């Protein structure tokens, strides 16, 4: 059993068989996470570099924990991209790392494509931990795994993604992953947050949140970045909440239960009401646990390639 991919740069080209394998392995690692000793020696002697060019708390911690649970040796390298602006080229940074004989690199960078560039230069396995507004494959995998856990299968599931789709790497990876797994996807956002020609990805598009909720078995609620208002894309957070927020009233008016996901961190009472985020149909904390398991699975399966 091996994955067909050598690096995890995004979900755009990852086949269903690979995703299923990652989920199978992730469910195995879930069992490890329930043990009193939550550690296995699987990646003993494997060196993983966590290369973060952008601040991250959740993803970084999740990867760090996954690596520790697998007994990998880890090196953390954080650099603001501003230091690169001062002259050192990304290639120099990458070649420097390469010379250290590492096995895996987990990389986050503010610019789309930077992770692919790393993969082109370095003889190591590369895992994308988010490249700008492009992809965030492990986040989408953990989202979809949580859906699979909840619903048994993802095929034919109706999933709505609501929020700032255009500036979201989570949304794009989810669209690719969900479509590969046979789900139906609807996107819901204010028009300036809807990416150009996104219908070409075989997704439904709406500006009406009630329509999205009506359609969906599950909704993935994206974080609204407060800077967007300042840059003139939407008039106010108040209007956003009124028009697009997953409010108690909206959910209560539905004639069905609806599963709630959120990649975090949440702006409570903006894109989602606390009562919904903490409610019985939210699987937001399962996502966090599955995040560690999925990352263990990806590290394990790619380290063997």
């Amino acid at each position: 059993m091996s994955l067909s991919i050598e690096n995890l740069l995004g979900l755009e080209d990852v086949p269903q068989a690979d995703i299923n394998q990652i989920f199978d392995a992730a469910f195995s690692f879930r069992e490890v996470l329930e043990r009193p000793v939550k550690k296995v020696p699987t990646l003993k002697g494997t060196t993983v570099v966590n290369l973060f060019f952008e601040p991250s708390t959740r993803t970084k911690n999740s990867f760090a924990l996954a690596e520790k649970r697998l007994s990998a040796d880890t090196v953390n390298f954080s650099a603001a991209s501003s230091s690169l602006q001062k002259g050192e080229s990304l290639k120099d940074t990458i070649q420097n790392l390469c010379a250290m004989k590492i096995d895996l690199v987990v990389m986050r960078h503010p610019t789309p494509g930077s992770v692919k560039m790393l993969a082109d230069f370095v003889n190591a396995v590369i895992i994308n931990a988010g490249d700008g507004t492009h992809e965030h494959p492990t986040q989408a995998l953990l989202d979809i795994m949580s859906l699979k856990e909840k619903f048994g299968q993802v095929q034919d599931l109706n999933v709505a993604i609501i929020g700032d789709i255009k500036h979201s790497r989570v949304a794009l990876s989810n669209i690719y992953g969900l479509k590969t797994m046979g789900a139906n996807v609807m996107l819901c956002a204010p028009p300036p947050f809807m990416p150009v020609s996104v219908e070409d990805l075989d997704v439904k598009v709406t500006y009406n949140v009630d329509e999205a909720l009506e359609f969906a078995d599950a909704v993935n609620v994206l974080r609204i970045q407060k800077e967007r208002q300042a840059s003139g894309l939407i008039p106010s957070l108040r209007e956003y909440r009124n028009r697009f927020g997953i409010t108690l009233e909206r959910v209560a008016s539905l004639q069905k239960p609806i599963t709630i996901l959120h990649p975090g961190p949440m702006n409570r009472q903006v894109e989602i009401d606390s009562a919904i985020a903490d409610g019985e149909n939210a699987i937001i904390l399962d996502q966090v646990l599955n995040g560690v398991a999925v990352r263990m699975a990806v590290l394990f399966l790619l380290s063997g390639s």
Partner: protein
Amino acid sequence: MNFITKKTVTDSKMLGRMITRLSHEIIEKCKGIDNLAIVGIRTRGEYIAKRLAEEIENIEKTEVPVGILDVVMYRDDFRSKNKLPKLKVTDIPFDVDNKKLILVDDVIYTGRTVRAALDALTDLGRPASIKLAVLIDRGHREMPIMPNFVGKEFKTAPEEEIRVKVKEIDDKDEILLVEAKK
């Protein structure tokens, strides 16, 4: 790779007898079945473990807990192989602390799988003791590991392999000696 069968080592009938004999030996050596639990190593070990437990329950009229251990995460060779072994779930539905554990596998060869299994078991808690039961000991050990209960010792050449088939997944109970076709 294609394999040719060179010999039937044990047929279905003999395999049943082997299980019965091993069950008796286990009860005897462990001085009864208090705190006894059986853990099978995936994949074939799982089915052998369940049969041993069934047989012991028949003899002793008391239930024996059975768990399944997946040792892929503990193996030292997974990266040297061309293909990753498929990762499956470990399912041990009891507390291993202070248990007399019988670790079960179909064949013992180099001893590396058992080494990995011992690490995995000790990560799960602190058993009172661990004993090892196998159907076939085919020799060529690379680690100082000896099974406590052996169905049959069968000398093999390194290029040969022992195939244990169980009817639950292979339609048929039998043990074969096979060799890769050149």
